[in-house]
């Protein structure tokens, strides 16, 4: 058995039908192939293309004239040739008439009509009298040809008999514009020797697809499985996947847990009391203005549970009483503290934890959304994630803070990191950190930290030092996934998520 290429059922059907019905060396056109193979034009086209590529078919193009009736031809088809109209006239006059009567009816065409009718032996002339040769005159070859063309609209030369071709040639000569022709390119299909060979060897029936029926009937034992083209493209399928922010948050959580931190959570909507006042942020501080902070319209918080905390907090603002501070020296307002904000930092969550538990020792963290009233663009989002942590202990210091933050970043793969002084109203000293990005060869600012001020801890009854930090998350995610537009992180881009290689 010669090696032959795998065949699609369409290919096979065509190949077998051609081998059966077309003699070697003979070619057929598309219509014939369609008739023999019983394939639809579309299936046939595909089968021809595939078989041609396998060299099982040769396809030649040939030019074939196509004939159709011209203006004169259309008139003839409708009214008849002049000689036929003469026969009709004679019939109407009872079989005889005079030449002058013919002239009256045919004018310039008189001699053509009479001459042709005489040639056809349809009429006989005696002096001025013309009479029909027989009562019924059968259709002539020319008339039959015009009818044939008219009935199909156009006809290919290959569909004309030899005699018809002759008639057509003489007619074309006699009547200009009776028949017009144009040349059409037609495929001629012929099996190659290889194709004929493949058709015979491929006569075995194959299994097209494994179906429950094929499996249960055992059909697969007696028939081979049709090989398929494994290189063909297939439809796109996209997997379900976790969002890159979630994946990154998971890493951050693991880093904290490995350092002995406990995760805490807290609400996004906060009272100004906990978001600002408890953190010793004075009430006229620019960050508390609507320019920067989202206030929820029409809400006034119920602070009745925090009477004690409020007294202590307001004193620390007004005169620092009990904290060793001068305070901010203004009149603190409970009204201002009862406004409801979308938290501007996750410190609102850790400070509440501290106020509630007053731990002597603790390591806690929280990761969540924070809000700033910003107009969104590729770089700024009104909403982003923050990584917040605090450690509480009797002898914690700035160098411990530097150690924890360095350790944390090294767990995330950043080993080159430096610290600068900065300012926050609630920490002293305050530092900011920058990490060096090997990939971009630049320093990136990532977050702030410090030691909570006594004005923060003392009013809430926290005795030991508190090291605290709030670090950016989104920029790290953007860095990892090479995101240029922060809006891509937040829903606008399904295509990006589908194609994202999660790391």
């Amino acid at each position: 058995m010669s090696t032959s290429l795998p065949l699609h059922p369409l290919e096979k059907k065509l190949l077998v039908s051609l081998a059966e019905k077309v003699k070697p060396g003979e070619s057929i056109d598309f219509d014939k192939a369609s008739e023999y193979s019983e394939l639809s034009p579309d299936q046939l086209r595909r089968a021809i293309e595939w078989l041609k590529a396998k060299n099982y078919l040769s396809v030649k193009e040939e030019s074939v004239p196509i004939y159709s009736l011209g203006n004169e031809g259309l008139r003839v088809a409708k009214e008849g040739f002049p000689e036929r109209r003469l026969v009709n006239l004679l019939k109407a006059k009872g079989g005889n008439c005079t030449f002058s009567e013919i002239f009256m009816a045919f004018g310039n065409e008189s001699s053509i009509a009479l001459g042709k009718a005489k040639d056809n032996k349809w009429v006989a002339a005696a002096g001025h009298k013309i009479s029909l040769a027989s009562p019924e005159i059968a259709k002539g070859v020319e008339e039959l040809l015009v009818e044939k063309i008219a009935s199909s609209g156009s006809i290919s030369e290959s569909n004309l008999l030899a005699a018809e071709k002759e008639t057509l040639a003489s007619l074309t000569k006699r009547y200009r514009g009776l028949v017009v022709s144009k040349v059409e390119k037609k495929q001629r299909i012929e099996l190659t020797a290889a194709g004929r060979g493949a058709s015979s060897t491929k006569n075995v029936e194959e299994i097209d697809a494994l179906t429950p029926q094929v499996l249960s009937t055992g059909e697969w034992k007696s028939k081979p499985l049709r090989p398929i083209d494994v290189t063909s493209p297939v439809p796109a399928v996209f997997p379900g996947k976790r969002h890159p922010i979630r994946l990154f948050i998971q890493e951050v959580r693991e880093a904290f847990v490995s350092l002995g931190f406990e995760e805490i959570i807290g609400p996004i909507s906060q009272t100004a009391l906990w978001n600002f006042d408890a953190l010793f942020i004075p009430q006229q501080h620019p960050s508390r203005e609507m320019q920067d902070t989202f206030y929820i319209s029409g809400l006034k918080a119920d602070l009745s549970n925090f009477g004690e905390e409020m007294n202590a907090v307001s004193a620390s603002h007004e005169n620092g009483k009990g904290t060793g501070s001068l305070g901010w020296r203004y009149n603190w307002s409970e009204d201002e503290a009862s406004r409801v904000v979308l938290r501007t930092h996750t410190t609102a969550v850790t400070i509440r934890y501290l106020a509630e538990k007053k731990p002597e020792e603790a390591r806690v963290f929280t990761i969540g959304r924070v809000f700033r009233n910003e107009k969104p663009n590729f770089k700024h989002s009104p909403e982003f994630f923050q990584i917040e942590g605090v450690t509480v202990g009797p002898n914690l210091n700035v160098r411990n803070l530097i150690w924890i933050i360095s350790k944390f970043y090294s767990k995330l793969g950043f080993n080159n990191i430096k610290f600068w002084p900065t300012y926050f109203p609630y920490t002293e000293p305050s530092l900011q950190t920058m990490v060096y990005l090997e990939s971009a060869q630049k320093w990136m600012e990532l977050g702030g930290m410090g030691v909570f001020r006594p004005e923060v801890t003392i009013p809430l009854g926290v005795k030991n030092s508190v090291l605290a930090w709030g670090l950016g998350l989104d920029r790290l995610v953007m860095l990892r996934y090479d995101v240029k537009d922060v809006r891509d992180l937040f829903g606008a881009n399904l295509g990006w998520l589908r194609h994202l290689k999660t790391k």
Partner: protein
Amino acid sequence: MPVIQLSLKNLLAWTKRRATEKEILDTLPYLGLDIEGREGEYASVEYSPNRPDFSSEAGIARALLGLLGLESGAPSYNFGQSEFKIDVENDEIRTFRPFVSGLCASIQVTDELIKQLITMQEDLTNGIGRRRSKVAIGIHNADVIKPPIRYYATKDKNFSFVPLYGTKAETINTILSETVQGRQYARLVSSGIYPMLEDSIRNVLSMPPIINGELTRLKPGIRRLFVDVTATEKHAGVGATAIMAAMLSDAGAEVETVLVGDSSGSHSTPDMSEMRMRFDLDLTNRVLGLNLSDQEAKSCLERGRLSLDSGFAVIPAFRMDVIHPIDLVEDVALGYGIHKFAPEKTESSLSGSLHPRGKKLERFIDLMVGFGFVEIYTLSLTSKQVSNLCPDQNLVLHVEDSKSENNEYLKSEILPVLLSVLGSSTHEVYPQGIFEQATVFSKSEKSEAQVLEVEHLGAAIADSAANFSAIKSILEPLIKLASGSDWHVKFEAKSANPEIFADGRVASVSMTKPNAGTIELGLVGEISPSVLETFGLRVPVAGFEIKVEPLISE
């Protein structure tokens, strides 16, 4: 954060060329100054609002010299007395804007100096002055003023004077409604009380905190300045005056004091007297993790331009940031050098743990990803279009003054947001399946902040074959697999309210258990064609929205 432009050429001159440009640029960040940009000899630096004394080149140079080790300790200022006096005249002013101080400074006024003074004055009045409400500063040509100066308040809106850059006298009314400064600051005098500074021949120097008079406008060539500072809070006014005085003195001016008096007596301004605060070495070493001796700590403080005198830190009047001994700790840290702090390991016997809630939420994520859905994160703040699709409009929360109309409402449902994501992804291959797990918000009087925050899960399938049964066949196993044992999932026909779903193709879903009752979870259904049209969607979408709260607290 305020930004100031520094001339490196000037800074080099301040150091008398004992430091290089590189040393200066390397040191600035260790003063807490962020270098924002460089252009030629200029560097823009951002300074922290707690250091208003950094609002001038002179102020930054003063600190820089300390950190570079070129000068040390608290600078002292001794000013002679000028002939200027300010009389505080009436009770209205004593209650409305009680504090006033002044100073005189003889200096050759140049364009460059005017620019620096104006920038500084703006930074101070915007920052510690809280946009002039707390502190306002006026800088005048002293030579045209005939002291003594009267400080009083009038209620007469028709009182008139020639305002800055004006050509003729205008009434207060006109000035407030027609000058730029008037319109910007009119709110500060909305009570109808107008503070005035006038000289002895009734020329108006200024109507603080709104606008100066034209008479005393600064021009190059002037040789003597008068500066007035008015304030609602004493310490802010005193600090701002000291900062102006120190800056002018450092810049080479001969500064003289101005007497401020009323019927009860008078005092000399600016008040440059240093504050003394006990320095706590133990606290310092404990917080910084250092073991500094008295002498070492002293030298660190001195590099920060403070002095130490018998256990007390001596703090110049312009250092408004020092309000607690902990602030001295920071000065020691800066004087020591933040870059010299070595990390110190801290051990803890505490064991870390993840919040149990997060673990439970992860179950839903696992299942949804397993069902082939792509997880989406969207903002909590959404547009009106999206928010309108939430069922109970009365409970929807709105934020004030959002800078974008896409971020005005807090989302109370996830599904509408998912539809908007699908609407912007119509060029992507179908089928599309997306989900989000997020906190949603609604008004609630039960919580202290009047906001109820609940965890929801929303999912949607967009596909020619998306229909009720396709989405139900996801939701049903999801709830069964995520809920505790024995719960039975129940679907019930629901009328299409909310209108997001198509009538006849929506069900409520709940879970029930004998003896435990029924817990409503949410809704599932085919999205109504009119909603699809709103989001430009031409394929069917089916989706669900459920509370996961009952399932995770189970």
